[in-house]
């Protein structure tokens, strides 16, 4: 059984993701790209929750939890690298 309303929501979130991806590709400086990647991570979590509800699978939402926590660690590491370089 497929719930189509969440698919329409997913199309909107994917559109926002493509707009963000344009910033990641164009971004003149490194922090601009990092902001784009951080935004993209949040949008991917929202998209995974929507797909989990649409396909009726709870496991997608579990993956969204893990993805949220791990992408946060990735952002922190990139920020630390920007700040003083990896030593």
């Amino acid at each position: 059984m497929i719930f189509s309303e969440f698919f329409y929501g997913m199309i909107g979130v994917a559109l926002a993701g493509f707009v963000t991806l344009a910033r990641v590709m164009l971004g003149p400086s490194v922090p601009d790209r990092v902001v784009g990647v951080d935004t993209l991570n949040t949008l991917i979590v929202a998209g995974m929750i929507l797909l989990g509800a649409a396909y009726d699978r709870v496991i997608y939402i579990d993956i969204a939890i893990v993805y949220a926590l791990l992408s946060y660690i990735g952002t922190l590491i990139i920020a630390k690298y920007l700040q003083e370089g990896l030593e």
Partner: protein
Amino acid sequence: MIEIIIYAFLAVSVTFNILGSLSLHRFSDVYTRLHGATKCTTFGTIFVVFAVVLHSIWQLRETNNPKYLQMALHSIVALIALMLTNPTGAHAIAKAAHLSGYKPAKAVIDAYERKIRGEAQ
């Protein structure tokens, strides 16, 4: 009736997600872009989770299948994780960008710059 409410929540969330990604192109420097990106995408995800929770509570009443209880609880846990980590990540990016030398464009005052230079001298 409940489908209309779910559609309304999803419309709000998609509107704010697209607005957040447009703000990346509308503004001109890292800090103002972070404003739009962090606030709007967090708010959009809150409404996504509201829609999913409402849908799963409704399905739980219709079908009495414990899968929908799990769906509601796990989406709430994902929302809590996101609301705790998103502002902290934004703070880390802003501080790193400032310390690595990207100054805010067209700023009327920069107290943090004054503090860093005061410590350096």
